[in-house]
């Protein structure tokens, strides 16, 4: 029996996907603007300054200029994009379900360990490793974001505090 697509989940997924693509695009657009001496490059870099230290030595470069975010942040956002693709195949738009806690702990362990180790000056990891740990962790994040926002939207549609659709999966 074919499953019915929940339009709210589909809408939230679509907006999230569009926003993610735009966000990743802006990360690469900033160095493009800087390489062409555009006066708007400062504004684009400034958009990302609240969420990233933007240290050039910890960032990948594009067209000879540092990206708008560091390697770890780029990994997280790239992983989020990959996670969106995985969400489409693993969840679809018929049900909401959170990942198991042990899986979250498993994928979080590398980035947490690496971040704390660098913060405490125990070691200094390469940009590639920072990117990889961010990529792994970022891939699981859409399963939380879309579930939470969709559940919030569905509860508001129903007008009470408890969402009714979609029905829980066993």
């Amino acid at each position, binding site marked *: 029996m074919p499953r019915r697509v929940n339009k709210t989940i589909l809408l939230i997924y679509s907006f999230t996907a569009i*926003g993610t693509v735009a966000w990743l695009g802006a990360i690469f657009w900033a160095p493009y603007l800087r390489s062409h001496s555009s006066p708007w490059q400062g504004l684009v870099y*400034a*958009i990302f300054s*609240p*969420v*990233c*230290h933007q*240290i050039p030595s910890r960032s990948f470069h594009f067209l000879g200029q540092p990206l708008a*975010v*560091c390697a*770890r*942040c780029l990994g*997280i956002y790239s992983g989020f994009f990959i996670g969106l693709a995985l969400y489409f195949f693993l969840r679809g738009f018929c049900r*909401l*379900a*959170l*990942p*198991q*806690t042990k*899986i*979250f702990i498993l994928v979080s362990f590398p980035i947490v360990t690496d*971040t704390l180790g660098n*913060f405490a000056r125990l070691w200094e990891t390469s940009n590639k490793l920072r990117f990889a740990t961010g990529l792994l962790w970022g891939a699981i*994040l859409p399963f*939380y*974001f879309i*579930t*939470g*926002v969709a*559940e*919030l*939207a*569905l*509860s508001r549609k129903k007008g*009470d*505090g*408890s*969402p*009714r659709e*979609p*029905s*829980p*999966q*066993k």
Partner: protein
Amino acid sequence: MSNQRQGMLRPALVGGAVAGVLTAVPLVNCLCCLWIIGGAMLASYLLAKNSVVSLTSGDGAIVGIFAGIMAAVVDAVVSLPFQALNRQFIQKFMEQFSQFAEDMPSGWEKWMERGTGGMSMAWFLLGLVVSAVVFAGLGALGGVIGASLFGKKKTLQVQGVKDETPQDPGDRQP
């Protein structure tokens, strides 16, 4: 519903304030967006601690959004003195350096004057709005994660009677 939202305010304020301060303070703000996600998780934890029923993912999302917006406001306010200090430090450094350096970039005095000028209110508000939007998204993410990790209450079973507390419809899946 309004009572529930009022109950979310204090955890969101605490989580957002912690995240905002850590994001603004130099040297510790190197963890980038993870402070915002962590602050939202803290907000979810505090909300779950004071709640008698399990938190839904939607509850986590909304307390996380509130925490993210709070973090943006706190970050904007707390970072102001640090920006001023940074400008003063750079100006003094350049003045000292110019006494010893033979060749300084032409027009550096004008660059310093322009760089040490105060931030206009328009730019401050624009930065605040952009930060609030971005931090709200990160906060929603952190809030949902926090609700998933800390928000579940164990079902009580009385002998002969099973207590049916509301369960989170977001079921666990491998």
